[in-house]
Every structure is written in C-alpha cells, then in structure tokens.
C-alpha cells in the first residue's frame, strides 16, 4: 500500500447516488463501458459472465400489485477502505500478487491488469460482486477499435477488472492542475463518466473529506446509507432514498 502523500490532506473520493432520482435508464452503464473500454460478447445472455463495472440492480418491495414499488440501484465498485479507512479492503488484503492496491492519497482501489494473474481470490472476497473476470480475450466489432479510449488500457483474458472511479480522469485532471499552477484538483475537474452521463443528476461524485464538495453534504443526509454497512467494509459509495424498504434492503437490517 502506498504511503499517504505529504502534499495537503488526503482525499477520499466517493459517490452519493440518489435512488429516488434514478430512472433506471442505464446511461451510466453505457457511459462506463464506452469510457473504460469494457469488452462485450456477441451473446450476452449469461449475465454471470458479462462485465459490467457499473451494474444496475432492479429492486422491489416484494409486495403484490398494486402495492409493488420498484427502485433501480446502480452499483459501481465501492472502493472500500476497511475499518478505520486504513486500506484493509476485502479484496486488497487478499490479493497474493499485490495486483490491487488501496491508494491512501485518493481512497481509490486500483487494479493492475498486467500484475494480476487471475487467481480470482479478490472476487471471492468481494461481497458486492463488483469484480469481473475476463473469461475471453476482448473482441471488438470491426472498426470499433478506432473508437476505444486511448487513456484506458484494454484488458487481456485471464485477469480481473473493476470500476476504477475513472482514475485516468483523475490523472489527467491532476496533470492539468499542475500545469495551470493550481495546487488542487477542483470538484468539476475530476468527475466520473457515469456521473456526467446520468440525465437525472442522480449520481454525485467528489471528495468525501472536502466540505466544499457536494458529496460531503449529501452523505450526511438522514436518508443516506451504504450497502452492507454491517460488514465493516467501509464503502465510499453512499445511497439516498426516502423509501424505508430501500434503505432496509441495502443492508441486512434485522432489528
């Protein structure tokens, strides 16, 4: 695990997703796939072998018509910090080859594709199913290779991949900030592809530690919750919903 930067306070990038605003349109998923060169197959019917860094879940309150209610829940990687936010994420701590890392400077869990040898221990350890394995080599429809994002490396068969909070955008934003003589990356300078694609403005992204950032305020909403909080994975993705059954479904609340 890398040491925290000495330059300024460490950041903790995270997301707040307002589920009451989400319409389930799937624009975030499409944007994510295009931005991150996520491969797809001709036959995508077996969803357990599809790669979706950001996956949209359709939840319901389990009641029959006319009381049934539906809620869509987008699930990126939670970028868990583990208890105390020291980087003891469920996945990072188990990777035998140091192929996934917790960046104490940004709180982002990275995946080093050229280092991963595909043991899939991280996938077994992740309770959110946020990690995906490349069962095949990527095959792009003819001509599509020209539309791939040059800032993101494509992955080969046999390695694990997952949402990176569009880390390449952070790197670009950091370079720009440095070149412009500014000290810090501003909120609008680093935004993930899904955040920008959401037509309903349901996703908000920023530094959870920075009081100037929108997410800082949103995460304190009384209706904010995180998935499986009881497991103490300490995720960086917060959800907001006024619906109690949605909040309950986010964790194994029994009492």
């Amino acid at each position: 695990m890398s040491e925290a930067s000495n330059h300024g306070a460490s950041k903790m990038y995270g997301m707040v997703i307002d589920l009451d605003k989400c319409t389930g349109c799937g624009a975030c998923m499409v944007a994510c796939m295009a931005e991150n060169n996520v491969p797809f197959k001709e036959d995508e019917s077996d969803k357990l072998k599809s790669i979706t860094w950001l996956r949209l879940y359709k939840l319901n309150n389990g009641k029959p018509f006319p009381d049934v209610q539906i809620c869509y829940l987008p699930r990126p990687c939670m970028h868990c910090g583990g208890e105390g936010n020291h980087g003891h994420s469920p996945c990072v701590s188990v990777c035998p080859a140091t192929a996934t890392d917790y960046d104490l400077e940004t709180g982002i869990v990275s995946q080093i594709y050229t280092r991963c040898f595909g043991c899939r221990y991280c996938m077994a350890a992740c309770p959110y199913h946020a990690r995906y394995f490349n069962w095949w080599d990527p095959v792009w429809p003819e001509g599509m290779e020209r539309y791939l994002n040059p800032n993101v490396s494509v992955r080969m068969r046999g390695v694990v991949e997952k949402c990176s909070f569009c880390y390449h955008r952070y790197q670009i934003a950091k370079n720009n900030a440095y070149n412009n003589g500014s000290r810090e990356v501003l909120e609008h300078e680093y935004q993930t592809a899904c955040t920008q694609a959401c037509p309903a403005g349901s996703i908000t992204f920023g530094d959870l530690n920075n009081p100037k950032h929108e997410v800082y305020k949103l995460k304190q909403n009384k209706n904010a919750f995180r998935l499986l909080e009881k497991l103490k994975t300490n995720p960086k993705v917060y959800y907001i919903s006024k619906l109690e059954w949605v909040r309950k479904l986010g964790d194994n609340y029994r009492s």
Partner: protein
Amino acid sequence: MDSLDRAFIPSGAKRCSLFQFTSFISVIGIVFLWGVYAMLLIWIKGLNQTNMNDAYGFALWIWADLAVIALGGGAFFTGLLRYVIGKDELKNIINYAVIIGFICYSSALLILAIDIGQPLRGWFIFWHANVHSMLTEVAFCLSCYFIVLTIEYLPLIFENPQIDKIPFYHKLSHNMHDVMAIFAATGAFLSFFHQGSLGGVSGVMYGRPFAYREGIFIWPWTFFLFTWSAAACGPCFTIALTKLIEKITKKKLVKDNVIDLLAKISGWMLASYTIAKIIDTIYWVYSTLPPQGHKFMDFYSNNSFYGLWILILEVVIGGAVPAFILVSEKLRCNKSYLTIAVILAIIGVSVNRWVMVVQALAIPVLPFESWTFYIPSWQEVATTILPVAYGVILIALSYRYLPIFPQEKELNN
C-alpha cells in the same frame, strides 16, 4: 523384456506379470490422457472452457486443491510422529504416506497452475508477494513442502535394486535417511502453516459472513481447524489407500499393529477436532453472525441444495461417527468398522473443504441477490480426475519397482 523388468523389481518381492501390469497402466493411461487433453484445452483456450463465472470465482478446482492437501496431510503428520515424536512402528507405513503426500501435493500444484487465468504469470505470487495474503502463504509453504516431500521420496527411489548398485546413490540414500528428522521437522513446520493458511483463505474473507471467522492475532479460527482436520484425516486417507492396495495386490503389506496405532492417533485427533469444530460453529452462530446482520438459517434455507443436511454430513457423519469408531479399540480392530470410519472421515474433511469455498460463494450476501449454483464443465471434471489417474500410475510404478513396504517380505513368505 521380462528379464529387464525383473531386474528392477526389489529382490524377494512377488509382482504380477509385465503384461498384466502394462495393461493396467494402459487403461489408467487413457483416463490420464483425457485429463491432459482437457488441461491443454484450458491452457490454450482459457478459463472460458470451465463453467465458472463471476459469482463462482472459486469452484471445483479449489475444492479439489483443498481436499487433496488435507488428505495429503497424512505425510506430514505421520512424518512428525515417526521422526520427531519417535513412534518407531510407523516406519512401516511412512514410505507409502510420503508417496501419497507427494502425489497429493504435486496434484495440488498442477491444479493451481490450471486454475489461474494467466498461467505464465504464476510466478508473480512469489516475486510480487503480498505478505498479508493467505494465498501467498499457501503458495510459499506448499512449494517448499513439495520440495521436502521430493526429498523424502528420493531415497526410496534410490533403493530400487538397479539404482542402488550405483555407489553414489546408495550412499546418498543412506545419508538422506540420517538427516531425515530435520527434513521431517521442517516439513511439519511448513505444513502447519500452509494447511492453516488454506483455512485462512476463507476465514479472512470478512465480506463473506458464511466463511468469515474471528480468531487470534492474524489467524482466523479456520486456520487452526484446517491444520487440525488435515492431521486427523490425512492418516485416515493413508490407511484407506493401504487397505485398497492390499485388496488390489491380494497381499498383506502392513501389520495390523501399525495400522491400529495410526488409526488410534487419528481417532483422538478427529474427536478433538470435531469438538473444536462444534465449539467454533456455536461461537460463530451466536457471536460472530448477529453483528453482521445474519442468521444461521440464512445459509441453509431458501435454496434447492444447501440445507442442514450438509452440516450434519460434515460434523456428525464425517466427524463424530468416525471419531467414535476410531477411538474405541474394540470397534477399530474390526476391519469393516475401520474401513467405514476412514471413509467417513475422508468424506467429512472433503465436505468441510467444499462448504468453506463453494457453499460460501453460493450464498447471497447482498440482501437483494439470490443463491447461485454451478455445475462443472467436463473439462473441469477431467482435469480433476487427471491427478487421480496420475496418482494411480505413480503408486503402481512405485509399488512394482520400489521397496515401499518394509514388512511385505515377512508377511508374504
């Protein structure tokens, strides 16, 4: 050809005809080649040849890996009893235990090499080791212990009548025997850690409440339970295979007192292990699970396969029952009961390994997800049977050409 074959057979040992032997090897060889074909398919085409998926990152292979390592535990535990604790009678079964261990561990390494997505990068686990990962500890200790097993197996190969004629190998075999206690102690040390860290693999997954266990320092309770169960059930596997080879060769190869001693020790280990496992389960149900928002029955209901029967099969039928038989002198001296007990113990430890890796992944953790099931592809099955065929061939060759059982001559003349 026949005389050449005879020159390699240990003196005084009676073996079947060369034709019979080669026919047997050929039949097993077909199964072996089937496995090799599946293995090549997987290496060339990738893991899409399996039925694993993103919910089942660990599946049949990891279970096979954990199971063969547990069953191969007979080698380290018998070695520890023979060389370090000084149970001298066990010298009559140690060679066979070492060969079984060698087969189990080489198989485990082979399965791991097939199981990883990028086999050519397998060495990263050593080179870029993350010392905090249980799997790193497994890889290191497994490889080191495999070297130890090879060292323990070599002197036996040197005892082949033709190799023994070469003075260097004769001396080397003798000298290796002299320092074998050091190797055996190192092997026991390594085994303690890798058997344990295999338990740790599932025990540290705090995102998977079914597998997660609290523990002491960096080690979850599963760390100790896995070592314990391997030491208990490994010797049962050695006994089972001894009975099997005696049946096939129609010869008595090991005296009853040797088997009885091993069975007795194994029985007490299994009895204490079963008690520890029950305590662990109770502690997990009442102390570990509630704060994580789970109830015990969440893991055994709402699905078509995993019910309480699997827990009963593991702990009672595969734990308490064989422990009871093996501890009781009257029962374990009865051949049928002994056979039933060792088979049940093997089933018990294999079910435990299945539960800890495969059931753990079948269970939904997110409240809005449901159980997932998986049926292995033929390629996975073939590559899992491959080590069995390889083991049979190696045991057949070793039995024919090496003096594995020191009591064979005495018992058959």
